[in-house]
């Protein structure tokens, strides 16, 4: 038996080499944009934007119909909705590709970083847009501080539990923050209970966010689901 009759498969034509110079930056930008878009889609970015929009609508409804109590308690329900936005961001950290993506994705840390920063900015923007024209207790500064701090907690949680369960610790923290708000705690680490001008609260929230974002960008959320054991 010989292999004389075996035909070799046709070799696909090699595409012509791109002309050096003008076309290359455009293609790179398009590729980068497509990569970022695919990354966002794999993390359910569009659905996350829809969920953030729902949070903004809910916040608007709560303030419009005056469903919050007066005084310090006026911050209670907005804080929960801000936590809702943060946990939506935290849940988007889950990757459906697992380890395979980590071994091949050279740009993954930058994509994670960009996705989280973009979603956090979108969350703050959408929530602020939702309260435009109505009175939000303590204003946009507290809103932004709560969102970034709670997002930081969510990102740190995702390193341990995986992205899909990363909502547990932020909501637990908010549960405690409600108590701290009612008891007028003054510790900086209870930043949701502090006024918008409290420097220590800003430092705490910002530090948690920075550590969370950096750790998540470098390591990514835990690939194995927490309840797969």
């Amino acid at each position, binding site marked *: 038996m010989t292999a004389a009759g075996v035909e070799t498969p046709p070799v696909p034509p090699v595409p012509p080499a791109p002309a050096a110079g003008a076309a290359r930056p455009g293609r790179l930008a398009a590729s980068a944009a497509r990569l970022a878009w695919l990354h966002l889609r794999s993390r*359910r970015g569009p*659905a*996350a934007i829809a*969920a953030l929009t*729902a*949070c903004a609508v*809910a916040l608007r409804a*709560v303030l419009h119909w005056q*469903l*919050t*109590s007066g005084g310090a*308690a006026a911050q*209670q*329900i907005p804080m*929960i*909705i801000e*936590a*809702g936005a943060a*946990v*939506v961001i*935290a*849940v988007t950290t*889950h990757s459906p590709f697992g380890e395979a993506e980590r071994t091949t994705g050279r740009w993954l840390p930058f994509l994670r970083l960009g996705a989280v920063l973009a979603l956090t900015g979108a969350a703050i923007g959408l929530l602020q847009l939702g309260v435009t024209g109505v009175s939000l207790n303590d204003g946009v500064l507290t809103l932004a501080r709560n969102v970034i701090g709670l997002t930081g907690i969510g990102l740190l949680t995702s390193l341990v*539990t995986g*992205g*899909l*369960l990363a*909502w*547990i*610790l932020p*909501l*637990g923290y*908010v*549960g*405690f923050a*409600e*108590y701290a708000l009612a008891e007028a705690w003054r510790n900086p680490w209870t930043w949701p209970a502090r006024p918008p001008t409290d420097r220590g609260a800003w430092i705490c929230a910002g530090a948690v966010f920075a550590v969370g974002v950096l750790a998540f960008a470098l390591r990514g959320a835990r690939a194995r689901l*927490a*309840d797969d*054991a």
Partner: protein
Amino acid sequence: MTAVAVARPARFRPARALRLEIKHSPVAWTLPVLAVIFYLDTYRTATGLPPTWAYHASVITGHMLTYICVFGAGLAAWAGTREGRRKTGDLLATTARAAWTRKATVLAATAFWMVLAFLAETAVIYVQTAGQTTWGGPPLWPVAVGVVCTITACAIGFTAGTLFPGRFTAPIIAVAVFVLEFVGFKAVDDTYDFRFSGGSYAVLTPGQGLPHLVEAGVFYRIPPDVSIAQLIFMGGLLLVAAGLLALSPAARVPGVRGLSLAAAGGRALAVLAAAAVAGGVAASATAYSLAGTAQQSSLTGNWEIPALHDAASDRPVPYTPVCTSAAFPVCIHPAFDGYLDAVSAALQPAAAEVAGLPGTPVRAELAVDDALPAAAGTTSVYGYSGTGAGSIGGSWFGGPPGEVINAIWTQGYQQSFLFWFVSGPAQNASGNPDPAQQAVADALLAKIGAPAPDLAPPQKAGGPPVSQSGPAGAQASAAQIAAAASRFGSLSPAARRAWLTTHVAALRSGAITLAQIP
């Protein structure tokens, strides 16, 4: 022809399936978080409350149940999304067991963990309460409400997770439950702002906050009306969620995704599930309408629903007062035994200052409920208050004895007693002693080392101080009253006692002016 052994399908063993689900439940991940929140929020709150069972039980539904339901709903939704998340729907559709048995097992495992966490935390609260209270027993209605509320939250979350198996379902459900609970708290606050004005639907909120009276459940039992309405309401929601869960496979197109009606258990199950949904809606609607008839009793301060109310709960709870054997006996309800020594120590010097004068009471007793003490000179018993009502000093049992008893608290009882002694029925009605009464009381207080109070009309404890107003207070300046008090205080004890013996009746009736005080 040979006989072929046909293996019969193994009998379904729900206990084993449940044990496996309990073992693999994700709820275990949240137990440390629940424990930390419990300590920081519920336990610390309970330790600062007055030592009565009703007060301590209020943190079970007012604090603990909040995050138990939030995490219960979220984790149940997470468990409900499992088949969708792992894309095992088609695989499991081929199994012999009906889908509802599989789903019910997962839901039961999640609810088991959450109810276990709830009961464990309740046990901690009640053990701690047992170490502080001196009378009564643990209320069980809040525990029943908490258990049903926890299971209902799990069922709602699980059903949502089953119907919408996405990655955002669990956190969104948890946040939605969180927001709904705080909206309910706001509704409860609004209801209390307009209390005595009629019924309110806000009583369906499990977390009713702290009782508004320290004596809640002490002199009168707390009727179970509201708890029963809450159980009916949440039981209805539970039925609806369970019915929708059982119907969910039938609601999908067979062969496309999910399970067929046959796999779900057949027509009988579908009919049963539809009946559960209808029954649940009816039950919740009934509870809603019952809540609309709720009224707050002006006698007991408790919410009552006429259709559910038992008139027997309006009768006072019998008790044997605990009394001191001091020169001036002081009696108290055994529920507040921890305050007795402090109240007695506060009243002894004040009572000694007026001992033997006309109208001097022979003992002091804790006033029942919110009642004002009888006018001095008309009774032999001084009815002091534990809530601040009728008390010029405003001392009350607003926390554990070890935390609230201090010099100001003690002086409050002395101020209340001496102002009550020199004031008459008019002061009892208006809350304002006239300038002469105020000057004499200030002088007597100075003799026992207590400062003159910053006078305000009687108010409920915790209320803001109100500046002096009223005709009597407007007639004399503070300087004139202080001068008269100083003048009266400079008299010898014998002269002061002699003047009081002669003039105390006139002083109480408002017939003495500042100028007539020696």
